[in-house]
């Protein structure tokens, strides 16, 4: 219980020496970088487990605190039920077990996105008239002797959304786009550990917000300077039965962003 601050968790893990060095020098370079929040979990770059943060990161987190106001912030959390059924609902300690929230059927399972504040919550599913818990997710025995599912909503999960929000608000400032994101950089290959599961995908690199596509422009010629960074990216838009696929190609030193309109 009580896993509020991940910053302290970094002390639990050893072998931080080389990381502090790299982040130490990082500290000197960019104390005011807008890239501050743009790494989701900096631990993605190191092999020391999901909960540790380099001590050098500490100075960046005050900015994060400014963004996330003190007090429980409710953020969208995905709840999934894969056990079949026709009608699936959820209730939990987050709504005092008062109402049953319906889950939406999505292919083979049921999904709901709930705004849960940070902390620990118990919940249970109401499937076709019966209260059941999800055996594949963490469980806890409640004081009444019933088995409920348990979910820990962590602050570190929220940083992703703050980062993306900051990025899209400040995307007009391109002055720092050429610098590398903060974080420890090393020679070790990233080893994927199946037990690490991140609740959200990595955030969009900020330079992809600068594409010629999303600019409100009436002219077809533009002078954005970072063409080469989005050469291998395909953008997709689906609207009104029309699919638009877009990619940027380079021909010698010229770049053309093509948009293909196809009916679906």
């Amino acid at each position: 219980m009580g896993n509020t601050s991940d910053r302290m968790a970094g002390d639990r893990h050893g072998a931080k020496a080389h990381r502090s060095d790299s982040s130490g020098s990082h500290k000197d370079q960019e104390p005011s970088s807008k890239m501050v929040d743009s790494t989701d979990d900096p631990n993605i770059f190191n092999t020391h487990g999901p909960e540790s943060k380099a001590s050098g990161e500490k100075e960046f987190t005050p900015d994060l605190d400014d963004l996330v106001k003190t007090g429980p912030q409710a953020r969208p959390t995905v709840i999934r039920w894969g056990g079949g059924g026709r009608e699936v609902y959820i209730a939990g300690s987050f709504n005092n077990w008062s109402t049953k929230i319906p889950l939406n059927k999505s292919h083979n399972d049921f999904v709901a996105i709930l705004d849960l504040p940070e902390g620990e919550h118990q919940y249970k599913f109401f499937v076709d008239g019966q209260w059941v818990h999800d055996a594949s997710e963490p469980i806890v025995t409640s004081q009444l002797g019933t088995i409920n599912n348990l979910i820990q909503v962590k602050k570190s999960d929220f940083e992703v959304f703050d980062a993306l929000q900051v990025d899209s608000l400040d995307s007009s400032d391109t002055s720092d786009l050429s610098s590398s994101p903060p974080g420890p950089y090393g020679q070790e290959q990233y080893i994927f550990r199946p037990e690490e599961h991140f609740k959200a995908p990595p955030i969009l690199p900020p330079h992809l917000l600068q594409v010629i596509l999303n600019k409100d422009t009436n002219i077809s010629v533009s002078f954005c300077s970072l063409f080469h960074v989005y050469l291998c990216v395909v953008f997709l838009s689906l609207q009104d039965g029309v699919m638009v696929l877009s990619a940027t190609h380079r021909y010698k030193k010229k770049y053309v962003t093509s948009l293909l309109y196809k009916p679906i």
Partner: protein
Amino acid sequence: MMSSPIQTQTPTFTMIIVNSMVDIWAECCAFATHDLMPHAGTDPDTFIYTNFMKNHCCYDAIPTSSKLVIFDTTLQVKKAFFALVANGVRAAPLWDNKLKCFVGMLTITDFINILHRYYKSPLVQIYELEEHKIETWREIYLQYSINRLISITPDCSLFDAIYSLLKNKIHRLPVIDPVSGNVLHILTHKRILKFLHIFGSMFPKPRFLQKRINEVAIGTFRQIATVQESASVYDALTIFVERRVSALPVVNEQGKVMALYSRFDVINLAAQKNYNNLNMTMREAIASRACCVEGVLKCYPHETLETIIDRIAKAEVHRLVLVDSNDVVRGIVSLSDLLQALVLSPAGIDALYS
């Protein structure tokens, strides 16, 4: 030493192969790239623009970064026209997914032709505009003519590009990379003039630019297509279709020019969803134009070529209306006329009028 019969035959064989390769490229890069020199007695500046265009290729005129909209031929025409407006582009290459190649272009001319052919009344939706796919429209429109995509490669000279634009009487020329088959850019008269205007400062201005427009007679001065203020938008579309002009001076009863209605203004009907009321008068159509135009871009017979070229380049228009002191229409000076006169005619090539 006597050469063997085999040796004397081989050169002929090689020559045949080379000739056929030249034929394949003949369509694209038709003209030799050596500079033309004036012979005795002619103005030494005659070939300045001709040589400039021969010495630069289409690749040079392509912007560093640009956007290109492409439509699959199975897309509905109405969605295609709205997509043109939404993206702020005027033309789009068409991709046929069965043939796996580009087969044509969709431009405002297609929009004009569809409206003209199928419009019945303000009360009736234009069914064909609502329901047709691009491929259905092309089948109907092209049934009496052979259509192949006119394009150019990036290494062809700008001289070749100008020739192709003027000879084929088109305003959009796709530049296609022969290796990948990708469209890189849609080249236009305006883009070429802009390129010339930017780099033209590198060489001294030819003296003939100081000649007056009425001396050099560049432009159209007879049978100018115009439209009355009181005529309907549908009448204007009819003139666009029949006369194949790109803009119409809108005149009052005295022949005085009040505004200029170009093909581009027709796509505005799509932007404002007004395309179902083609009975409105030209006066109303001009008034409802979203972008306010200060006045018609005009020129007078006594103005020099240099003034006119500068004015066209700065205003980024395709033509100026030549008027007399009473603002009565006397002629049109367009980019096609200028490029023919300054670039092609010195080389003895007439593309525009042949």
